[in-house]
């Protein structure tokens, strides 16, 4: 009987192959910057998030013109821009991590990454352009 159909032959093939499978394509030698981005953006979001919540609560008393006037100042506009960057970066690394955990297979993970990039770019651009439009008074 050839090895490929003999159960003990299959076991022998599997045993000799297991280290090769575990070594896979080797270490990617990356992950540190993503891990750091996750930590740094989390720290940045503590003051920026507090500032965002307090600002939104205060803005509830303003009409649209008042809110626009507030956001046309450099400091609120800058902090709002930073808040958008930090929260999108944090959401991106977090969701990419979730995708790595749960979405297996080359096609699925590629689709997930592309979708995430697209969402981050569209949302980021929309947020940045909105803030800049008001700041520059157009």
């Amino acid at each position: 009987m050839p090895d490929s159909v003999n159960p003990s032959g299959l076991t022998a093939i599997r045993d000799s192959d297991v280290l090769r499978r575990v070594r896979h394509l080797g270490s990617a030698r990356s992950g540190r910057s993503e891990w750091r981005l996750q930590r740094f953006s989390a720290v940045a979001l503590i003051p920026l998030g507090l500032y965002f919540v307090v600002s939104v609560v205060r803005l509830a008393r303003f009409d649209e013109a008042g809110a626009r006037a507030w956001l046309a100042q450099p400091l609120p506009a800058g902090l709002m821009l930073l808040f958008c960057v930090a929260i999108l970066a944090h959401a991106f690394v977090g969701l990419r991590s979730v995708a790595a955990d749960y979405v297996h297979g080359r096609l699925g993970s590629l689709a997930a990454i592309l979708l995430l990039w697209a969402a981050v770019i569209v949302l980021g651009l929309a947020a940045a352009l909105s803030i800049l439009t008001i700041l520059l008074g157009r």
Partner: protein
Amino acid sequence: MAEFTLPKNSQLREGRRWPLDGDAKKKRDFKVYRWSPDGGQNPSMDTFEIDLDKCGPMVLDALMKITDEIDSSLAFRRSCREGVCGSCAMNINGRNTLACLTHIEDLGDGPVRLSPLPHMQVLRDLVPDLSGLYAQYELIEPWLKNDQPAPDRERRQSPEERDRIDGHYECILCFCCSTSCPSYWWNQDRYLGPAILLQASRWLVDSRDNHVGERLDELEDPFRLYRCHTIMNCTTVCPKDLNPAKAIAGIKRQISERG
């Protein structure tokens, strides 16, 4: 993709009941996972009734009583019966631990459920296939690597340097931690898991090893290391009270300190 239901061939059947002969004051049901590669049957939970007055105090004693007196075909691993070899690691009432260190009395009322370490291929009954874990252990090259010529005597180490190995060397490789880790469940083909990363850390903190950089290179990978999300199941279940989660955090910190 993560699996939320068991595959068809893993779904449990109600198994056979092995009733006790005669009356017993302290009767306890042991529900034990049974599966054999022969016959193509789905796994089942057999129920063994055990008289605790005629059985040793540990879960492993009950398992030995089953193979000795009730059903000799039950397969499980065991060797030292004192928490040193790590062979009898299994899932007892939903928690990975060593059968030899678990008092039956501590398990409360109701039946005792015994199943193999979760999310592993089962070879038979309570025996999981650990070959992937052993290969991952080989991957981290768990031996002293030092380019300096070997001295005439032992390589010296200060007491403080020796202390850093504490909390690492005690690991018995029972794999209760790795098989309790959801990250390891979903990505055990690529994530090294807490047991192996604890051992990787054991060589990273050893002052006599001077291949730290190469070791960190091999570990710095989104899957090998960074699938750890500090879920901490590893530290919760470790029957030797070790802290693999802390060791993994140490590896991440070392990688971060490189620049």
